[in-house]
C-alpha cells in the first residue's frame, strides 16, 4: 500500500540545510494502523506530509498503492489526495466561516460529486461521528473534541483508503483524546489504513504497529499484538491545551 525506500528530504533556507528525512524506509500494508512516535523535530510531520503528497521529496522512491508518485504533476497529486487520502490535523483545521455541513462538503466538492451524493455522504459521515444534529453549527460553537470529530468526518466523507493523522489528539484533553482514538480504531476496523503521528506513547500503543523516528530515520519498528485497553495509562496522559 505505502512503500518508502530511502526517501530523503532536505529543507534549504538561506542559512542552513535541514535534513528532515534521511534514507527513510517504511512499508505499510493495507488495513494497517501505524503509530509514529519520536522526539520533536525528528521528522514525523515531514514524513506524513510526504506520505500524503503534501510535500515533494529529494531522493529515494515512494510508491503509493503501487503508483510511483515522484513525478506526478501538482494537479495529479491533488486528485490523489482528494480520492485516496484523508487528513486529520492537530489543529483540526476546520474552516471557521463554514458550518459543519459545508466543512465536510469541502473535499467532496473537489471530487466532483453531484449534490445529492454529497449530501448523503456528509450526513452519513457526520452521523458516524455523532454530530449529525449539529450540521448547521459553526466550528466555534463546538468543543475541541467535537471539532476533531468533524475533521474526521470530513476526512472520511470521501471514503479514502488511507487516513493520515498528525497528532490528532495533541490539542485535546485525555478524555476527548480517548474518544477520538476509539473512533480511529473503529475506522481502522472497517478497513481504512491509518498512519498516525503522536508523541503520546500510551496512545501509540493502541495502534497495531509502532514506529519510532529519530533524526529523520526509522529507528525502531515493533508490532503491538492487540489493542490494549489501559485505563490507568490513559489517565496519566498529561496533554493539555497549548
Amino acid at each position, binding site marked *: 500500500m505505502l512503500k518508502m525506500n530511502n526517501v530523503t528530504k532536505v529543507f534549504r533556507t538561506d542559512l542552513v540545510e535541514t535534513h528532515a528525512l534521511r534514507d527513510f524506509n517504511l512499508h505499510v500494508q493495507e488495513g494497517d494502523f501505524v503509530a509514529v512516535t519520536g522526539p520533536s523535530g525528528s521528522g514525523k510531520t515531514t514524513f506524513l506530509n510526504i506520505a500524503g503528497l503534501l510535500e515533494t521529496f529529494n531522493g529515494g522512491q515512494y510508491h503509493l498503492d503501487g503508483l510511483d508518485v515522484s513525478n506526478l504533476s*501538482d494537479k495529479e497529486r*491533488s486528485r490523489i489526495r482528494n480520492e485516496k487520502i484523508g487528513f486529520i490535523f492537530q489543529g483540526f483545521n476546520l474552516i471557521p466561516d463554514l458550518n459543519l455541513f*459545508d466543512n465536510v462538503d469541502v473535499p467532496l*466538492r473537489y471530487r466532483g460529486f453531484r449534490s445529492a451524493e*454529497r449530501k448523503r455522504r456528509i450526513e452519513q459521515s457526520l452521523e458516524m461521528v455523532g454530530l449529525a444534529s449539529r450540521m448547521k453549527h459553526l466550528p466555534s460553537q463546538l468543543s475541541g473534541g467535537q471539532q476533531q470529530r468533524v475533521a474526521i468526518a470530513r476526512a472520511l466523507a470521501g471514503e479514502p483508503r488511507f487516513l493520515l493523522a498528525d497528532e490528532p489528539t495533541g490539542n485535546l484533553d485525555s478524555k476527548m483524546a480517548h474518544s477520538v482514538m476509539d473512533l480511529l480504531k473503529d475506522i481502522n476496523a472497517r478497513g481504512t489504513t491509518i498512519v498516525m503521528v503522536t508523541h503520546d506513547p500510551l496512545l501509540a500503543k493502541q495502534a497495531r504497529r509502532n514506529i519510532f523516528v529519530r533524526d529523520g530515520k526509522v529507528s525502531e519498528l515493533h508490532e503491538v499484538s492487540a489493542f490494549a485497553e489501559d485505563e490507568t495509562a490513559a489517565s496519566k496522559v498529561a496533554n493539555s491545551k497549548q
Partner: protein
Amino acid sequence: MFNSSSWEVGPILRALMRNKVGALLIAIQIAVTMCIIVNAIHIILERQELMARDSGIDEANSFHLISTGFANDFNEQVTIETDLNTIRALPGVIDAVQINAIPISGGGWSMGLQTQPGAEFDGVGTAVYMVDEHVLEALDLELIAGEAFKPTHVRWRERAQTNWPDQTIITKAMAESLFPEEPWQQVVGKTVYINDNEPILIMGIIDKLQAPWVGWNNVEHAMLSPEKTLFSSSRYLVRTEPGRRDELMPKVEEILAESNKGRIIRDVTSMMDTRERSYRRHGAMIKILTTVMVILTVVTALGIVGLASFSVNRRRKQIGTRRALGASQSAILRYFMLENFLISTVGVVLGAALTIGLNIYLVQAFSLDRIDWYFIPLGMLVLWMVGQLAVFGPAKRAAGIAPAIATRTV
C-alpha cells in the same frame, strides 16, 4: 474541465455572510465607482458630441482680426474698402469678408424673425451676420437653394441704424424652424418680418453656419444680412489656401497696421484658437473627468488588491487545508476569483441603481441628458472585469500556498 460542484457558490456566499462588512465595503466601492464612471463617461460623450459639431466655415484655414479706428481723421468706409481689397489681393488668400461677429466665438448679435407681421407674434431667434457678397467664398458656405448676394444688394450700416436690408440668406436649420410645415427648398422667395413688421425676402438658403454662442439651443440658426458696418471697430475674417494660414496671419496684421496709422489692429486669432477657447471648458471637463475615472478605478482596484491580499494571508491555513483535502491550484484560484465575482455582482447591481439615481439627479439639477440604457450593462461589465483583474494577483498567490501549511501548527 467544467464541473458544477467545484463552483462553490453556496459555501462562498455563506462564508461571505459571516464577513459581511469587508465584502460590503468592496461592493459599495465598486457601486460608487461604477456610478461615477458611467455618469462621467456619459458627460464626456455628451461634451465630445458637442465639440464635434461643425461650425460650417473653413476653420482650419481661417483667422480673424479687429481693426479699431481712433484718429479724428479716420475714414472708416475708405479704410474698410481698402483693407478688403488689399487682403483679397494677397497671394494665398482665398477670400476675406468684413463680418460683425465671428461664428462660435461667444459674442454676436441676435434678432427674431417672424412669419407674420405684428408685435403680438413670436419670432424665431437667429444669429445675424452682416457680410458682403464675398461671404460664401470667405466662409466656405454652400448655397443649397436660391441666389447669392450681388454687390448691389450690399449697403452700409451706421452704428445706431435700426432698419434692415430687404434680403437675407438663412441657414437650412433656420428655414426649417421658420416654416416647419414646408420643405426647406420652398422657403426661398418667402417674406419674413424683422423688428415685428419690417419685411425681409429670403433669397437663398445655405447648408450650415453656426451662431456665435456654442451653448445656445438654436446654435444652427443664422441669417446673413447684406451690409457692411461703420461701427468704428471692424472684424475681418480671412480664409487662406490650405497650409498658409500661419504665414498669412502676421503678414496681414503688419500690412493693415502699416497701411493706416489711425487705427489699431488687434485680436488676430485663428479660428482653431477661437474654437479651442469657446469649447475650452468642455475640453477641460473631459480631461478632468477622464483623470478622475482613471484614478478612481486604480484606487478601487488597489483597494480590492489590498483587501484580497489580506484575506488571502488571513486564510493561509484554510487554503493549505483545502489543498491538503484535494483542491488543485486552479480550484483555489477559482475560489478567490469567484468570491470576488460574487462581491462585484452585489456591487454592480447596487451600482446600476446608484448610476441611475445620480443620472436622474444630474438631469434634474443640471439638465443633462438621460443616459442610454446600454451604459448600465457596459459599466457593470467593466467593473466586473476590474474586480477580476485586481483579484487575480492575490488569487494567484493564494493558489501558490503550499499544502504542507496545513500540518504546520501555529
